[in-house]
């Protein structure tokens, strides 16, 4: 414990990981929700009727909350580059700086300014202007993803620069922006945002539906979300696979860690379960399918794949990457099954069933799980590098005394735990209240929304 508290590198990494993990949950939702809201708004403007507008009104509240948490945790991130990783800006500031500056200039102001008009503009601007504001907010969130993913991709597969006196200098901005991994990473991330949002909307709508809150707004939101999920997840699996192949080409050590592959060999098995052990440099309790990994990585059952032992002292921690990858893939497969089962059920009966609705409720936050584990695969998979092949994480860390980092880390962890609980409970509280407002006293006035499910189930037994 005392060694942990004295380790500025480890504490800085934990703190940054905690901040970025907590932060990413909210922009991912803002990006997806902004486009979904634009869709709801356009449908409402065009089709009329209360359902789309009610759906918009409900989800715009969630959006505002999500956006606010995203903004304030994002401000934190912008400071931590300097407070925790001064070596980062000192070495690659010429590249990271402009990309971050463009994010602020083109994205942050756009979304933050038009958010006001989008949220509170009714009665002050025309419908068309308000829809336009919604579009600009959505555009802003997506532009923000563009810049930050360009930077993240550059850190993974740096290009378009030369090192002069230990500092990176740009030779081609196009090459910096569109590095080899950027198209895959950007597409993969945007789809992840879409899926995270779709499962959140579907989950909350299914929860309302199960509680007997089955108005038009719940139905249109549910239907749209299930469609989006069902359409995106197969595409996401394909894009994810392409992303993996791209990683194999540029960062073979990361793929070796994802696969739990120690020795370079032909006919590599696909490991389903294992406990990778860096001490013995082997897998314990391995369950695998022979030759399959060679096939899906190189499209030949006998192809050779590089193992971790080819990268002495410069491969990522294996256990974390290996398991994060399996969690992401596992959740992705569950998403495929649940979204298509729900869609087919909706298409055939026009209603969810008890099983599909329950599955959707359970999957409400599945997008977060997949998203965070996917990020862990790619970011922990880059270690020990901060910028692949250019700057090691250990060389960029702050010289701030460890106890200060520890103190602020504890502060952030407590704050984030409170905020996460507050966010999730407020989400369900809003859903509960929306139903109560619409249905008046017909609904069971339950003080604690979490008990509503049981009460609802009990009611059904009586029926």
């Amino acid at each position, binding site marked *: 414990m005392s060694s942990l508290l004295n380790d500025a590198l480890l504490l800085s990494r934990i703190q940054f990981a905690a901040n970025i993990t907590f932060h990413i949950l909210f922009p991912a939702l803002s990006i997806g929700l902004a486009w979904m809201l634009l869709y709801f708004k356009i449908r409402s403007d065009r089709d009329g009727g209360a359902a789309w507008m009610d759906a918009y009104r409900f989800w715009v509240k969630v959006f505002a909350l999500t956006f606010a948490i995203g903004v304030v*945790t994002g401000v934190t991130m912008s400071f931590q580059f300097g407070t925790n990783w001064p070596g980062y800006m000192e070495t690659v500031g010429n590249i990271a700086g402009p990309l971050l500056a463009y994010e602020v*200039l083109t994205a942050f*102001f756009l979304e933050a*300014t038009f958010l*006001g008009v989008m949220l509170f503009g009714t009665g002050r601007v025309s419908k068309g202007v308000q829809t336009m504001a919604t579009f600009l907010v959505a555009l802003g969130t997506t532009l923000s993803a563009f810049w930050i993913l360009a930077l993240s991709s550059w850190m993974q597969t740096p290009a378009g620069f030369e090192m002069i006196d230990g500092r990176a200098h*740009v030779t081609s901005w196009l090459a910096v922006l569109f590095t080899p991994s950027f198209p895959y990473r950007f597409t993969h991330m945007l789809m992840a945002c879409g899926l995270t949002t779709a499962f959140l909307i579907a989950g909350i709508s299914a929860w309302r539906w199960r509680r007997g809150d089955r108005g038009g707004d719940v139905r249109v939101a549910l239907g749209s979300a299930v469609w989006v999920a069902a359409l995106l997840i197969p595409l996401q699996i394909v894009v994810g696979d392409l992303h993996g192949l791209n990683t194999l080409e540029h960062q073979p050590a990361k793929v070796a860690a994802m696969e739990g592959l120690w020795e370079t060999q032909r006919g590599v098995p696909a490991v389903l379960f294992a406990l990778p052990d860096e001490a013995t440099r082997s897998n314990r309790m391995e369950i695998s399918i022979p030759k399959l990994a060679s096939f899906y990585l190189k499209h030949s059952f006998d192809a050779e794949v590089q193992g971790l032992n080819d990268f002495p002292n410069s491969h990522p921690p294996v256990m974390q990457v290996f398991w994060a990858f399996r969690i992401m893939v596992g959740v992705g497969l569950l998403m495929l099954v649940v979204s298509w089962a729900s869609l087919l059920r909706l298409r055939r009966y026009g209603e969810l069933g008890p099983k599909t609705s329950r599955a959707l409720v359970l999957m409400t936050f599945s997008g977060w799980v997949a998203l965070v584990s996917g990020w862990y695969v790619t970011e922990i998979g880059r270690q020990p590098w901060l910028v692949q092949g250019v700057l090691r994480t250990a060389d960029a860390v702050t010289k701030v005394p460890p106890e200060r980092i520890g103190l602020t880390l504890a502060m952030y962890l407590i704050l984030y735990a409170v905020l996460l609980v507050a966010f999730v409970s407020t989400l369900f509280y809003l859903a509960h209240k929306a139903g109560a407002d619409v249905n008046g006293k017909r609904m069971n006035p339950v003080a604690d929304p979490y008990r509503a499910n049981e009460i609802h189930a009990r009611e059904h037994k009586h029926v």
Partner: protein
Amino acid sequence: MSELAQSNGWLPLVFMAVMGLAVLIYVVLDGYDLGVGILMGLASDTEKDTMVASIGPFWDANETWLVLGIGVLLTAFPLAHGIVMGALYLPVAAMLLGLILRGVAFDFRFKGQAHHKPWWNRAFVGGSLLAALAQGYMLGLLVVGFDRTPINMLFAAFIALCLAAGYCLLGAGWLLMKAEGDLQRRAIVWGRRALWLTALGIVGVSVATPLMSRAIFDKWFSVPNIFLLAPIPAFTAILFLLAAFAFKRLPVRLEQRNESWAWVPFGSTVVIFVLAFHGLAYSLFPWIVPQRMDIWQAAAAPESLMFILIGVIIVLPAILGYTAFAYWVFRGKSRDLEYG
């Protein structure tokens, strides 16, 4: 100092100006909404809702100016960013804690359960106060060159109080324009109290900065500078008196439903902030870390600065334009916030 005809000579100057502009706009804009947040601690429950409504459409964008300011420090002066942030580690963390608390409380207090609302209100007030104090403390440390002697830290703590008062003054001025009835009248009382502490803070910074180094002292008090610069403090003093006069006259005028002076306290406070900011900038220039690193030593490579500059030239006017649009849309007295 590098040759100004060359890009590595003038580009850092341009970015110094951009950073200064961002910080100044931030201080004024987030200043009034942090101020309204602090004053909420003194308001009744219905007043609280009106106060939040008066800043609701703006606070997100206001805070973005901070991100731009820190973004320019990060991107244009990467070598200074680490030093400054390292020196301000704990106050920065405190400020971020405050900003997070108030940012989320803003939404949670509306959307959460009713019996949690008082707690979110406290988080909103406490967060606003903490952020303002932390910023003032950082300003104090900057003025004394990040030199942490006990007397300097005491001075920074005093500046922290004064900046919080300055924000309250801005907030009260904002409420004077946006609110009606009782709240408007209470804003006058709050503003009058904040006015004097703000003035004290500006005097404090003005006295301490020249004492920091011989160079700064000479910049202000050598001939002919002292005469050329005299209008800055003189004009600041006049504006304080104007604000004080407005606060004195406003209760009567508002009684007669005459709103024509309601903008005066806010307007004069903004100009006071602008003047004080320029005075400080004049003192500190060209240092980015006082007496240790100037803007040319800290600057990023010219090709990187040029790439950002193109974006700044194209995008900054657009940002200013649509910011003005948003303020125009939500002009006049604030109404209850309703999504729709």
